[in-house]
């Protein structure tokens, strides 16, 4: 009985949906996190009687034939690219990106990774790094004697010094944009890597080439909507139960088959 296996594909699909939902809910407070959603597609079809095959000697053809489906498969777990709400933190190195684009950081192996999490820090030498300690491109150093720093919408970082009226320009942050942001590969710690699917990233100053602007003193919150996740969870759980009912019914039918004699 194929119905058993079909129901099993349905159960594992719903299982995967619950996995995705639980990951979203676990990341409800992760800054810069985008909610993910599991997407499904149906599996192959078995052809029993092809549509248009001859049904009788007088040439009558079957109008639709029989195609029996074999269940469901996960098609994608895609990111819902959405602007999260901005939370005011007043941290001088907390920045939120309004619009498209990612900050780029350099991993210890020299590879570039991309993030929307703008909770930046500085090292003992004054280098601007992300929470993991990876250098933020283009490697701006804040002098130790700077009184305060300010970052404008275009990502230009200015430092104020005691006894000086004019601020000093330290450098400008660059953002990286992608043709297909959903194609980026998540590697944890709010970081993404470029893939074939995302296309090559292009670097540009904030506010140009369709990229967003930066805002100092704010952090982008997670875009997970708890109400939506809960309704999805209810649907996934009921879907799981429905498929398990099919398994029970098929089991009983098989029981009846063995009792024929």
């Amino acid at each position: 009985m194929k119905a058993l296996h079909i129901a099993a594909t349905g159960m594992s699909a719903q299982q995967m949906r619950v996995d995705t939902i639980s990951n979203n809910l676990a990341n409800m407070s992760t800054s810069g996190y985008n909610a993910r959603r599991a997407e499904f597609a149906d599996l192959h079809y078995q052809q029993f009687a092809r549509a248009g095959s001859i049904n009788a000697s007088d040439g009558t053809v079957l109008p639709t034939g029989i195609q029996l489906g074999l269940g469901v498969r996960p098609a994608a777990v895609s990111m819902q690219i959405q602007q999260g709400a901005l939370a005011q933190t007043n941290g001088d190195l907390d920045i939120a990106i309004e619009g498209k684009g990612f900050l780029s950081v350099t991993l210890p192996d020299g590879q570039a990774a991309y993030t929307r999490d703008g909770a930046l820090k500085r090292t003992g030498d004054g280098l601007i790094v992300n929470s993991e300690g990876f250098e933020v491109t283009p490697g701006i150093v804040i002098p130790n004697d700077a009184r305060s720093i300010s970052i404008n919408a275009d990502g230009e970082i200015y430092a104020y010094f005691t006894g000086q009226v004019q601020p000093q320009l330290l450098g400008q942050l660059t953002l990286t944009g992608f043709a297909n942001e959903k194609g980026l590969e998540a590697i944890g710690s709010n970081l993404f890597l470029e893939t074939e699917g995302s296309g090559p990233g292009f670097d540009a100053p904030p506010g140009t080439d369709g990229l967003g602007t930066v805002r100092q003193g704010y952090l982008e919150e997670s875009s997970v909507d708890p109400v939506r996740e809960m309704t999805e969870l209810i649907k996934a759980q009921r879907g799981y139960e429905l498929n398990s009912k099919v398994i029970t019914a098929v089991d009983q039918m098989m029981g009846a088959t063995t009792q024929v004699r």
Partner: protein
Amino acid sequence: MDNATYVTLTRLSGLKREMQVIAHNIANTSTTGYRREGMVFSEFVVGGRGQDTSLSMALGNTRQTYQTQGELTQTNGNFDLAIEGDGFFQLETPQGLRLTRAGMFTPNAAGELVNMDGHLLLDAGGAPIFVPPDARSIVMSGDGTFSADGQPFAQVGLVQPVDPVSVTRAAGTLFVVDGDVEPVFQPRLRQGFLEGSNVDPMPEIARMIDVQRAYEQGQRLLEREDERIKNVIQTLGR
């Protein structure tokens, strides 16, 4: 001649197929753009030896695809499109033109809109849709016209098969059309929504119980028939 057994057998194997269809529907309750499948049984008459004797068997030989509207779920995705009413999206696949109702698209590395399996979405003229990479906001109007920052750049082409019967299914919520397709008159699309599966679990479960009980009935009939023949052999062979 043991006709009763054979007739019951056709019924039982048909029920097994129907069970498979139900399991497939239930497994796809969360599949974007999935269309519910049904099974139609027909009578299959075999002529007997005499004038008045004939034997009818049940044969599950046609299927039906229900094209009712599925529920729309808000996703806010820029390229999540839902069709309201008739029509299908056109996809270009290595096997040729395919239709689908699953409207989840994303730009690929070249900036063209593709579905989750990487098949190109086609516009009203049958060409791929290229999304300008530097567009700040992309908005689609109700008739499927995409505009970037207020400048229209493409219109999603919705079509429907001229002969609805010429449609068969393929994996990945795709439909294959054997004949011609025609553009939909006044297409209605919604951006930021996805059309879910049109499977309603309640009738499916009711059908499932129905099939299961019918199967058990058939099994009882086989059992009785077996006993009857045994009795005949015992009585006549005495």
